């Protein structure tokens, strides 16, 4: 096959673009690694198992931050995932056509709101609500569980998880909606022709077909929750702490970096923060990678 010059140039540009992204990720990783070297050398493995964060004596442990990041993100996913799928099903299958467009638009708008605004909403509206209403309510009905022990302060894992869930609903729901809509009409009609009810068609045919795609949407949402910084910092409570109770304040990797970076003086402190960034990088990479792997395996196994 003969190729003309335009094709070659285009191919070159496309190749360069994709290589550029790979190189960017690679250099980001290398740079973080270089900067975090003093911290890695000083703390070694203790960085990951030490609970103390004491700037006065320069003892830094990342465990509370890693724990907080994972707890708030998973909590957010637990809240947002079912809701988002509900939204997606409603828009793609059930809503009258006149409602479809405005509803999708509003949800996409929700995704465009800056995270600072979610943080302010969390701090000024949600936190008092959690302290005075939601917290005591959960305690009354589920107080026997270790997750709901102690005095609700208003800020903490629970509030951060709720704020994060609202922030990732647009990502998950709009992606899921696209995926549901991509399920061929023929298949639905075949289901109805066999005498299936609407519920059966949605559950077995539409969701059955779109399952792996919806999981992928959830993972993307989780990725956003892991990396969210500003809003979480405002509502997490910023207390380096590991607690099973969702009412207690905690820290996340991003909140520690945001809080400490501006005033970080000295090589060690900056290096410690860089290592935290590296840890977040690796956690995100790992979760995304694992999720991808399982989803791919699932699709191929079917």
């Amino acid at each position, binding site marked *: 096959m003969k190729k003309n010059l335009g094709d070659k140039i285009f191919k070159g540009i496309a190749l360069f673009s994709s290589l550029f992204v790979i190189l960017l990720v690679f250099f980001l990783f290398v740079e973080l690694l270089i900067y975090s070297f003093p911290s890695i050398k000083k703390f070694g493995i203790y960085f990951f198992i030490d609970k*103390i*964060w*004491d*700037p*006065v*004596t320069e003892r830094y442990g990342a465990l509370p931050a890693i724990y907080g990041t994972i707890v708030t993100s998973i909590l957010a996913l637990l809240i947002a995932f079912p809701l988002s799928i509900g939204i997606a099903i409603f828009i793609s299958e059930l809503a009258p056509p006149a409602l479809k467009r405005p509803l999708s638009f509003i949800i996409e708008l929700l995704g465009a709101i800056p995270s600072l605004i979610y943080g302010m909403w969390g*701090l*000024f509206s949600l*936190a*008092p609500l959690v*302290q*005075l209403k939601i917290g005591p309510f959960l305690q009354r009905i589920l107080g026997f569980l270790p997750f709901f022990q102690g*005095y609700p*302060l*208003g*800020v*903490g894992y629970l509030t951060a998880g709720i704020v994060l869930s609202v922030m990732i609903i647009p990502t998950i729901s709009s992606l899921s909606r696209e995926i549901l809509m991509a399920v061929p009409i023929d298949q639905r009609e075949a289901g109805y022709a066999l005498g299936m009810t609407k519920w059966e068609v949605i559950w077995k045919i539409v969701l059955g077909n779109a399952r792996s795609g919806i999981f992928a949407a959830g993972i993307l949402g989780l990725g956003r929750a892991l990396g969210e910084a500003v809003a979480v*910092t*405002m509502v997490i*409570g*910023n*207390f*380096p702490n590991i607690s099973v109770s969702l009412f207690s*304040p905690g820290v996340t990797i991003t*909140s520690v970096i*945001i*809080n*400490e970076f*501006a*005033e*970080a*003086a000295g090589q060690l402190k900056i290096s410690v923060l860089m290592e935290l960034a590296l840890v977040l990088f690796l956690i995100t990479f790992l979760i995304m990678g694992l999720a991808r792997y399982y989803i791919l395996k699932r699709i191929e196994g079917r």
Partner: protein
Amino acid sequence: MKKAILVILLLLMVFNIYGAVLINGAGATFPYPLYSRWFYDFEKEMGIKVNYQPIGSGAGIEQIKAGTVDFGASDSPILPSDQNKFNLIMVPTVAGGIAIVYNLPGIGKGLKLSRSVLVDIFLGKIKLWNDPRITSLNPNFKIPPMPIVVVRRSDGSGTTDIFTQFLSAISPEWKNKVGSGTSVNWPVGVGGRGNMGVAGYIKNTVGSIGYLEVAYALQNNLSYALIQNKEGAFVAPEIKNIKSALERVKVPSDFYIYPVDAPGKESYPIVGYTFILIRRDLKDKEKREALFKLMSWIYEKGDKMAEELYYIPLPKNIKDLALKRLEILK
């Protein structure tokens, strides 16, 4: 013709930049509202432009050490050994008090807190508002039985530095267990980011207590406590009480001092200075002169503006000492 005009415009721009002296500064956020007003008026009066970026004390110190700005600003003093090592002069510009603020339903300002009670609240030893140690100090208030929620800064901050210096000064236990610094390992409590973050938490959380720059406490209408000073008197963070404290603390010529826990019956015990840092080896002669002009202008004409914005002007003896330090710029 058009080209000629363009060339003239360009020349004008170039000369405009090089004609006027420009001073670049960066650092502390706490004095920023005041600095921006000071620098604006200073430019109007003296024709010298000051460009200030509130990027945080730590970053300000790093930048002046590296020599990328003409002055750095910091809320906490830097060690004399560091001043020498990096060839820096450090002088205070203005002072401020730190209020202990709280949110208790039905209780306004004026709750009395003794020194040991304050320390034990922040150590997490006193957990309830109706603890007998608090109620016995305040027989006039009907204090509700409520858990105490300690609120403090989550970001590194000069305010935290001054407050923890005070706690270390009055309690050996605090000094050993926690210590002092721009950020510390707090035994209890939740952290808000920035003064606004702390003010927001306190406003929204019943039963909370925290520390804030007086200006932020007043602007947010928060109730503040009367704190027991060295002489045993309970004092409010008012201008005259903060001034009394500043006047009674002897200041060394390198200004490395935390004027906390000052003697004097009227003195409010939690106060601090905010500083600017200038390189002794600054090469540019024009900039040296401009910086000297700026500082003497601030000391001479800045007091009124400072008080309007709830900052505390420096006592005269400290201004004189600072000017003497700055002579070498001339």
